[in-house]
């Protein structure tokens, strides 16, 4: 029943006919698959210190002279397999980005709905605050928060939430303003619904499209932001290396010709963000009827 409805939907119709959509969703599937089943796939557990031997340090990728097949993408200064580190790192990176998007969208939706629906002074106050926050580069805010609170996975998620809610709030408020004037909102007031019900059951579903599109873009942005923070040494603690941290570790030896330590984690970041943005583009075209 459910499957049949999906198969008959407009969305699926356009999905099947869009090469971008199919390719990007396969890439995303691959990324999620690797992240979920990572520990079962990797040749080495990069967190288990007993597996690391300094004798294996800075091995080049397997296809270069001196490379070994068990270290397909080479090793870093501790003799850690880069491929395994990337797989484990992507888990942490994705977890942080997804949770960041989830929390910031929830916060942004609540604030945006409230501002758009209630209006008046509350709206003016919230939106001016949002404008002020948006006028600071998000990197600056992130640096400020991370240096204040210290490095941890929780703190970086909080930071992403505090940075990300503004865009959601603005979009949701704008859409709420236009939906609120529709007669079906008036009609639900006439039926006798409370404002809370109207906000969440009548208005919210009508603004979700934009939220979904924004979320795909935000996941990419957050992965990059987290990587940048980790690269600067303000991200996650060293015991849980993310992709950005891996790049940063290799940076010191980049000019010694040991390029692979930074290169492959960086490449994987590009790959993830590319796949997400590609899919986000397709979603935007589909969910925004004005662009069709």
């Amino acid at each position: 029943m459910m499957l049949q409805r999906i198969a008959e939907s407009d969305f699926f119709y356009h999905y099947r006919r869009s090469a971008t959509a199919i390719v990007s969703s396969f890439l995303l599937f691959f990324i999620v698959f690797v992240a979920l089943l990572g520990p079962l796939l990797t040749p080495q557990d990069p967190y288990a210190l007993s597996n690391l031997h300094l004798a294996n340090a800075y091995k080049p990728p397997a296809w270069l002279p001196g490379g070994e097949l068990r270290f397909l993408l080479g090793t870093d200064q501790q003799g850690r397999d880069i491929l395994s580190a990337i797989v484990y790192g992507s888990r942490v990176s994705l977890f942080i980005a997804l949770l960041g998007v989830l929390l910031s969208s929830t916060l942004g939706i609540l604030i945006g709905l409230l501002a758009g629906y209630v209006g008046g002074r509350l709206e003016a106050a919230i939106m001016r605050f949002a404008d002020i926050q948006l006028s600071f580069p998000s990197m600056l805010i992130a640096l400020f928060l991370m240096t204040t609170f210290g490095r941890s996975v929780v703190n970086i998620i909080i930071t992403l939430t505090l940075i990300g809610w503004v865009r959601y709030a603005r979009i949701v408020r704008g859409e709420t303003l236009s939906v609120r004037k529709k007669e079906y909102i008036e009609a639900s007031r006439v039926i006798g619904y409370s404002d809370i019900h109207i906000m969440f059951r009548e208005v919210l579903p009508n603004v979700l499209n934009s939220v979904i599109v924004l979320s795909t873009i935000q996941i990419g942005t957050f992965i990059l932001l987290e990587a940048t923070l980790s690269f600067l040494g303000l991200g996650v603690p060293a015991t849980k290396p993310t992709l950005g941290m891996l790049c940063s570790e290799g940076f010191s030896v980049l000019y010694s010709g040991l390029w692979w330590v930074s290169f492959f984690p960086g490449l994987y970041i590009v790959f993830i963000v590319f796949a997400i943005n590609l899919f986000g583009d397709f979603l935007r075209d589909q969910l925004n009827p004005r662009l069709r």
Partner: protein
Amino acid sequence: MNEDLLLDVRNLQTYFYTPKGVVKAVDRVSFNLHRGEVLGIVGESGGGKSVTGFSLLRLIEYPGRIVGGEVIFKGVDLLKKSEQYMRSLRGKEISMVFQDPMTSLNPVYTVGNQLEESLILHQDLTKEQRKRRCIELLTMVGIPNPEKRLKDYPHQFSGGMRQRVIIAIALASKPDLIIADEPTTALDVTIQAQILKLMKKLSEETGSALILITHDLAVISELTDRVNVMYCGNLVETGHTKAVIQNPAHPYTEGLLRSIPDIADTKPRLEPIPGIVPNMYELPQGCKFSDRCKYCQSVCREQEPPLLEVGRGRKVLCFFPLWKEE
């Protein structure tokens, strides 16, 4: 007290406090409505028809406010009740049908879903009973194949069909009063007649009273028992529809009637009412219609006209009514 009296509106005043000044959208309007009766409210755009309708449900949005009067529904003054009481009343005892069927249904829910909403809110039915009632309602408003159509979304319905669904929603809880705010303005002419007949038939069958807000006098003469003519927030004439249309007593009513094209061509030419509706911020002194009235005399520009009773149930806001019962 008259058992038959459903709604008694006395001196209703709804003002909008805008930065440019106060707009008296509804100014001291009084009328009443009996059970099962069909009342028309007619007038030009901006005359206060819709605001009157929304005032009855107390759904006036900022910067508007009901500043005075009484709305006595089944013996209870609604203006004195809590918002919670109003919520339990809306959709259950008084419901509303809107102008534009294209935007009156939420596009993200199925039609069945939206029909059921009102039942969940106001009635204690099991899931099975609700479904049966939904099918019954759609059948009542003449939607073929109702069981299947319940699962469809609003965009899968045509305008006329959507308006039928909206009427079904309005009827869901067997209200005593339905307010229809220009229910057919957005529809094709052929569909208009169908929808109006349907509304009339259903209000007769269910015994609901109906307030029909429109600017279309043909609709008024066809469907209503009594009519209120509104101009610039004032009720300028009220009476039995036939009497008002045959012998308009207010110059504005006469003007409205003369400006309808007649297909039989019995009138030599159309006579539009000269001028436009005055700016609500700068209403003329005295009678608000004085600037456009061909019978205007000096007293009309100086003093506000009285509400004269010119016949049985017939009142007119004019110094010089055009008609009086002998």
